[in-house]
């Protein structure tokens, strides 16, 4: 067979970039970078994995630098860029962005809510706490389980529910909300909202851990929202209503806010409008334990922490332990609340 030459040697830079730029799958780029020394150098030096990842998920343009266990932030930001440091940075980015892009596509799909942070108002705390929305269905241990806003004369007054997600970085695809039907009231009214909107972002300051009791709070002074969805109409129906985002959204910083816009149901007893929610689910792919994020002040820039490159990260868990675990956790808290 005729000996062919390596195209990286006889094509101009732009054409070589174009050919490799046609590869759309992160593992393809990784394998191409393992073909030979010159190919590896080409893929890494041109940051092709980073480019692909940013093309797929522009949210990661806010990455300030990439660190990993063997390279802390001091080392990553080392000044006096020598060629060696520069190359180490490129290599680290190559590895991290390839795995990140693939993780955003293929890490297992899970329930992403870790805990409730706050509601804009709660009518009767703790009986009607936002924490009840972590529990599936509209009753728990024989008692109604839901969150209720305070009552308003004006149907336009919005409410917000804020949740902490299971990982610093989550790729969120859909949100399910079940409005609460007050089956114990006459005519069983359903206290839904007219529409919902979702915001994602990060806290202005690092949050304490554990979170403590969810209190009434206007969330806007504590969080910075970097994504806001369109408004989705909500039906006045007692069912887990599905709101699918037009495309997967990368939430960096692990905070999700549900805005409940407009009230539809008046309570007979006091003539006020309320919004009540029985259950909330957030579906997506948490990037932990492979990746973490450390926010750098209010700018929205963050340090991407590559923590492990374990191929088993792609495997679904043996059972739905995490999922049920969340609910057990919620249940324990609810018991504590009940004992208060």
């Amino acid at each position, binding site marked *: 067979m005729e000996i*062919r030459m390596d195209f990286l040697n006889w094509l101009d830079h732009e*054409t070589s970039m174009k050919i490799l730029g*046609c590869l759309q*799958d992160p593992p393809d780029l990784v394998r191409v970078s*393992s073909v*030979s020394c010159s*190919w590896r150098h080409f893929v890494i030096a041109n940051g092709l994995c980073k480019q692909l990842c940013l093309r797929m998920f522009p949210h990661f343009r806010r990455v300030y630098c990439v660190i990993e266990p063997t390279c802390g932030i001091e080392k990553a930001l080392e000044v006096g860029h020598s060629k060696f440091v520069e190359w180490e940075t490129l290599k680290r980015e190559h590895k991290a962005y390839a795995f990140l892009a693939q993780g955003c596509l293929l890490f297992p799909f899970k329930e992403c809510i870790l805990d409730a942070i706050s509601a804009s108002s709660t009518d009767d705390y703790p009986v009607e706490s936002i924490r009840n929305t972590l529990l599936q269905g509209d009753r728990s241990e024989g008692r109604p389980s839901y969150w209720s806003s305070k009552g308003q004369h004006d149907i336009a007054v919005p409410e917000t529910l804020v949740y902490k997600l299971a990982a610093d970085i989550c790729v969120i695809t859909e949100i399910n909300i079940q409005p609460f039907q007050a089956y114990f009231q006459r005519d069983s009214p359903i206290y839904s909202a007219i529409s919902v909107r979702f915001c994602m972002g990060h806290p202005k300051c690092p949050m304490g851990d554990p979170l403590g009791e969810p209190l009434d709070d206007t969330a806007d002074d504590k969080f910075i929202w970097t994504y806001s969805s369109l408004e989705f109409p909500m039906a006045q129906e007692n069912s887990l209503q599905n709101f699918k985002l037009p495309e997967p959204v990368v939430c960096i910083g692990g905070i999700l806010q549900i805005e409940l816009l407009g009230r539809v149901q008046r309570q007979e007893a006091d003539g006020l409008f309320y919004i009540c929610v029985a259950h909330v689910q957030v579906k997506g792919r948490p990037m932990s334990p492979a990746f973490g994020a450390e926010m750098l002040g209010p700018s929205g820039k963050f340090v991407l922490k590559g923590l492990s*490159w374990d191929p088993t990260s792609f495997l679904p868990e043996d059972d739905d332990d995490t999922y049920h675990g969340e609910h057990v956790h919620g249940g324990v808290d609810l018991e504590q609340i009940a004992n208060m």
Partner: protein
Amino acid sequence: MSSSAENPTLTTEITKPSTEIATETAQSAKKINLKTSDDQIFEVEESVAMEFATVKSFFEDAPSSTDTVPLPNVPAKPFSQVIEFCKEQIKFKANPDETEKKKSNSEFVKEKTNEDLVEMIPVANYLEIKDLLDVLNQAVADRIQNRSVEYVRSFFGIDNDFTSEEEALLREEHAWAFEDVDED
């Protein structure tokens, strides 16, 4: 609608078909001789030769030249395939139909061996045939997609110059990317 917007001159071509076609025929009657690196001479219709930006600019620099144009970086075998592609392309210039064009392009690519594709890239690159380059780049990417490292090496005829330790380390570091590839 969209294609006429992309190419405003097209409308005139369509509204005055008789004169345009007449000139086209007159033009295509003219032949140009192109000499490949392995000394083969190709007699190519001028309209096809003008698809090669490199040849076109040769004539722009020397409009009255009747000489054979040397193509020192172009071997005959891939060149004949490049001509085949450009002949097809010209049909779509007169009568643009994106769906048909795509179909024709993918048929062109489908019939080619891996070696054909790889050999045509530098030719298309040297002759500056942008459409063909785009088609070839995508075709090559499609063929190495989800393939093993060994397959990619043999596809391009690349020697593995990693030591076995280096390669083992690479595979370990990126173990996740080496699973589930198509069989060679």
